[in-house]
């Protein structure tokens, strides 16, 4: 009954969805790598970005892919402001406080969205939403292929920022030795905020890529971020290539587990990996040994 072609399709589907997971995880791992906190507001910010992309289309007639160029900078600014003026000052220099503040922000943002837009499900109907690419043995949905490609472009851009710019160097310096960086004249609060902004921009781009095929609700982001946490652990906390490869891997695992065990158990595969990684290789695939 099971033809290899179907298996290949399942793997391809896993790669497509895995790429979006990877982008969400990229933002999360970036913030962890520099600020050493798990950003609990990541999912809520993703939901906010989904709404932004939805209304950009609804009110301004802006295609979600084009809206990325507007929403990503806007969310960079939002992330920057959040860290600089809310999370940073509220933490009073203690990392654990930052964690709690992000948790509070998550509750705040999610409920603000719920209050403003209700739990109603929204979707956009785009002319190309159902266009698919015929591979002969299967069809690949065009929006998914676009998002797959876009994720690699974003990852490349991020790499370029980190490797080639002064800001990138400063971020890496703060990540590896905060005190040293501060002594060398780097404005740590600024770098923290830039990093938070970059992470938020990543999740905003993921949201824009999802809008053509996914629905928008105040809690839509949450489901992605839970998987992203797993990816960050699998790839290694703070590792950018780890997030990318981990995302694709988790996508495939979820797809295959879902196919063989049934959708209800698809997530079991993911969390089994999560546990095994924690047991066998707690620093993850690409994590630095602490």
């Amino acid at each position, binding site marked *: *009954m*099971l*033809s290899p072609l*179907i298996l290949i*399709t*399942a793997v391809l*589907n896993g790669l497509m*969805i895995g790429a979006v997971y990877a982008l969400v995880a990229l933002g999360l791992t970036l913030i962890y790598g520099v600020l050493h906190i798990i950003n609990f507001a990541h999912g809520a910010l993703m939901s906010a970005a989904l709404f932004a992309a939805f209304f950009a289309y609804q009110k301004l007639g802006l295609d979600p892919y084009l809206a990325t160029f507007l929403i990503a900078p806007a969310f960079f600014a939002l992330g920057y402001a959040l860290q600089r003026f809310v999370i940073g000052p509220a933490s009073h220099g203690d990392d654990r406080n930052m964690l709690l503040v992000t948790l509070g922000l998550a509750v705040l943002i999610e409920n603000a969205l*719920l209050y403003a837009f*209700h*739990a*109603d*499900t929204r*979707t956009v*109907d785009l002319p190309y*939403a*159902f266009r*698919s690419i015929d591979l002969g043995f*299967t*069809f690949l*949905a065009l929006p998914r292929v676009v998002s797959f490609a876009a994720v690699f472009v974003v990852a490349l851009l991020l790499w370029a920022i980190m490797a080639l710019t002064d800001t990138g160097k400063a971020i890496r310096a703060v990540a590896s030795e905060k005190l040293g960086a501060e002594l060398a004249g780097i404005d740590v609060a600024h770098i923290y905020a830039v990093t938070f902004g970059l992470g938020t921009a990543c999740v905003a781009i993921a949201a824009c890529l999802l809008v053509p*095929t*996914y*629905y928008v*609700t105040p809690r839509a982001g949450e*489901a*992605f971020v839970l998987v992203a946490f797993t990816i960050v652990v699998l790839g290694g906390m703070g590792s950018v290539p780890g997030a990318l490869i981990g995302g694709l891997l988790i996508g495939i695992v979820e*797809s295959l587990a*879902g*196919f063989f065990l*049934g*959708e*209800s158990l*698809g*997530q079991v595969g993911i969390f089994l990996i999560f546990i095994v990684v924690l047991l066998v290789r707690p620093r993850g695939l690409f994590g630095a040994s602490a």
Partner: protein
Amino acid sequence: MSEQNTLSRRRFLATTALGAAAVASGSLAMPYVARAQGAGVKIGLLHPVTGALSYSGQQGRIGATMAVEAINAAGGIKALGGAKIDPVLGDAQSTPDGGNAEVEKMNSAEVSCIIGGYSSSICLAASQTAARYDLPYVVDVGVADSIVTRGLKNTFRFSPGFGVIAKTALDNLAVINDQAGKPAKTVMIVHEDSLFGSGLAKLLNAQLPAKGFEILETIPHPTPTRDFNNVVLKIKAQNPDLVIPANYYNEYVLLARTMLEQHVRPKGIYSVLGGAASSYKFVKDYPDVAKYIMDCNHWYNPNSAQAQELRKTVEDKGQFFTYELYLNYSAVLLVADALERAAATDRGKITAALAGSTFSSPIMPYGPTKFVDGQNQGAAPVNTQVLDNDIKAILPPQFANAKAVFPMPA
């Protein structure tokens, strides 16, 4: 010892003060009837307007308040001297506990009756709590059969329950298939894995073979599910004649979308209480995806001028005419009819009037009401199909405004 004295003295003082106040106001025994003109009849409207079910809850609240406004505008309850209905709004917060808390509050506010609940779990809890106060409770939507099998005298359901809906759905599926010359022989069921979807899948597995259908596979999935590609791949591999989805709105839409994306076109998509299949929102958002999908669900009487008028009023306001809305609208009319006949705001009398109701909703295709153990025997679902960018009723024949298109054109 002295403490006890103080306490009892306090209590004594409090009681006498209360008594004095009552005497002063001079109307403890018959406040409502004496001052009927102008004094409102308090009716509790309970809906989950926040939380996971908030969309449905809000739709329900809109329907109920529209009916209250219409009744008040037409002169209120005439048997009570034109008393206006005074709605007491409650938010069940999408949980049974939230529903219970609101029932307690409504009881303290001295409502005469409660309407609503929406989900089965909220209806089960809230009606039980209301029963403690002999407070009549009219279920607006909740389909679980257990709601009306607990022997509660205060609980009434105007709309059909799950058992009736499922039986009608199966019978009508056989009718539609027979009329088309039995093109469908094989079936795949895709269901969400909580009580609603699993229960339905179990029922379908037990009864479809007897109707001549072979079930190729039953695929469960959780709510929420983000991606239906694997499910659709399985459908593609098995190539069934009929796909039966049993899930909530988001997953229903995602599944139907993915099927179109992957060029999977069975002879028909048929659902029972389908999350999106008879939703105008779905048809408006995705006309191509929704086309030809069939459903067996709560539905209004499309041949009723009053129903069409209500639909127009709702749509002019920019709202969708959903079943939550018109079921609540009808439930309020049912209670208003009972109030007219009870000619009192007394809970016992209203309960008796509801139990003996022969009210015929101008909106719903139910005919005259007849409650047996709180369940309206005339309540029945309607089979619908998405045709011409609209949702048409295709069965039963007396309420149909279109003919089923099955198998769906390639």
